[in-house]
């Protein structure tokens, strides 16, 4: 009887667990189906699932760029790096790249993510090496789901307007050539892969995503090549229910990202015009500094050494340099004052998205583990 009571409790617990899992799973699946349908409307003209697109149209995930701010405050002051403005650029520039890639009509969905997506079909990351109004230098890396590096190189662009004249221009056109080069290099890198290789990348991406959610179920599907890249060992059946669930979960995640992405774009539009002014200001300052340095080099004081005119020139040169530096800092502060609330809102939304995804992942993992347990009797 002792055994029977324990068995009854276990059985009751299992029933409750089964019911709750079925309920949760139904909610997730129902939600995901509705949202997936909605996504197709939202993403009209942009194929997002492997079945609806050409094999060459890989989905691209672009992560927010590394702002490239030295940790030492004294160092970044010397380099004229303004951390808050770099934070804006780190969020803005991936969207510029995204726009260019979308316009090529050569890729699947192109998304900007707050953090790295290891299972992305093609993950593009970047770091700002230099951005001072005169030039933009990015270190860009693209790696596919199997772990192959498509490109890893620096891109430099001197900021000029389309007609070669100075003046306020759209930030987009200012960096057009740089982002065009990245798009072109991605295009060239893809041309090195045949359809089979590209299809494999899509499958590896799905399997890596599945492995992230249900490691014990999908642990044996991928292996490692000697060069460290992922290779497919075997594939799930076409009607594998667990794999189908995971695919649907992924669509839900994409939907959330796309919704947040739209909000980001609205915020970017707010910041962009101010950022263009800032960039133009920095460009003018850099130009002025160059002109001033040249002028000073050419016209050093002819006053006799030790005369008042000579020592006044020495002092005035320093005063001019420091005053210019302070002016730049005050303008940076003014820029920060203006965009600060918007940037904070963006950062908050990024944090919310990350929290949401983290919670959802944990929930999805639990549900999948429960389903797996119910279907197989094996613990995850």
């Amino acid at each position, binding site marked *: 009887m002792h055994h029977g009571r324990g068995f009854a409790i276990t059985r009751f617990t299992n029933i409750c667990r089964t019911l709750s899992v079925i309920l949760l799973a139904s909610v997730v699946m129902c939600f995901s189906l509705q949202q997936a349908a909605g996504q197709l409307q939202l993403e009209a003209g942009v194929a997002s699932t492997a079945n609806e697109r050409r094999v060459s149209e890989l989905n691209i995930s672009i992560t927010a760029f590394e702002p490239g701010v030295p940790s030492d405050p004294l160092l970044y002051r010397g380099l004229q790096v303004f951390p808050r403005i770099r934070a804006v650029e780190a969020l803005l520039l991936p969207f510029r790249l995204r726009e260019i890639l979308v316009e090529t009509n050569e890729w699947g969905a192109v998304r900007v993510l707050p953090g790295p997506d290891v299972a992305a079909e093609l993950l593009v990351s970047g770091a700002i090496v230099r951005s001072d109004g005169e030039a933009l230098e990015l270190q860009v890396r693209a790696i596919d789901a199997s772990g192959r590096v498509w490109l890893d190189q620096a891109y430099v662009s001197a900021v000029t307007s389309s007609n070669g004249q100075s003046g306020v221009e759209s930030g987009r056109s200012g960096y057009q050539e740089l982002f065009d080069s990245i798009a072109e290099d991605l295009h060239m890198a893809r041309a090195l892969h045949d359809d089979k290789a590209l299809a494999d990348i899509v499958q590896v991406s799905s399997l890596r995503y599945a492995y992230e959610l249900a490691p014990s179920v999908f642990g044996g599907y991928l292996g490692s090549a000697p060069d460290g890249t992922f290779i497919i060992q075997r594939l799930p059946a076409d009607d594998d229910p667990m794999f189908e669930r995971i695919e649907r979960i992924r669509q839900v995640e994409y939907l959330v990202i796309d919704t947040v992405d739209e909000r980001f774009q609205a915020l970017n539009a707010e910041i962009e015009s101010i950022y263009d002014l800032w960039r133009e200001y920095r460009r003018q300052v850099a130009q002025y500094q160059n002109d001033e340095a040249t002028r000073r080099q050419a016209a050093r004081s002819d006053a006799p050494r030790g005369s008042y005119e000579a*020592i006044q020139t*020495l*002092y005035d*040169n*320093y005063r001019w340099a*420091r005053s210019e530096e302070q002016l730049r800092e005050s303008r940076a502060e003014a*820029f920060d*004052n203006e965009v600060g609330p918007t940037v904070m809102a963006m950062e908050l939304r990024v944090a919310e998205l990350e929290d949401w995804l983290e919670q959802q992942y944990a929930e999805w993992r639990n549900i999948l583990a429960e389903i797996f347990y119910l279907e197989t009797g094996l613990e995850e």
Partner: protein
Amino acid sequence: MLRWPSLLILCWLLAACSQQPTLDNAVRSDDNAMPADLSGSWERDYWRGDDVNRTLDRWFRQLARSTPDQRLPGYPSLDNPGALISPQSVALILALARLADVITRLRTFTISQSEHEISVERDQDFDMLCEFYDGVAQGATTDYGAEICGWDGDQFVSRLVLPDGLLVSHRFTIAPDSENLHVATTVSSSATGLSFTLSRFYTKFEPYPSQFDCIDTFSRNRVCTMGEDSR
């Protein structure tokens, strides 16, 4: 020709007059507390402090008095500085004095002080900035010179090192009542060893409170709203 003892005296005099800051201990003390609080708005006290002409006059008199036996033939006047140093040196000391006078003409300035930074904001001139991170004092540096700063006891010292051995240093000493500030500004030429110091005194004042809350923005410049008290 000057003899060695006279040279030594001359050097001591020059050193004493120059009040060169000692920056060996430019590293702040370990407890992260600033030795003194200089923050506030400061207004020049014209009743006190040096007059540049009188200071120059005193400087030359002292120099002359210190080595009366070194006057050269043809320079009978006791007060004639030309008896002791070359015309070039005289021109230089006058130039140093003039620059010291120009630099210290400001009527008011504001000192902001935090745990990691001291900033002296001056009209018509650059802000002197001294940052303290990891216990090390760090001033600004440009292609045209560098600022070295730090605490010398409870005196804050900022020294600007410029090309051709030109140095401009400011030594800030706050009175025990915290309402008065003494600033000794020394302009010197390390190449010649000549220097000139001017003392200025300042009293603390409370700026008239504005009825507006203002903020600098990039695209709209300064934006002000009515302050809380005015509504």
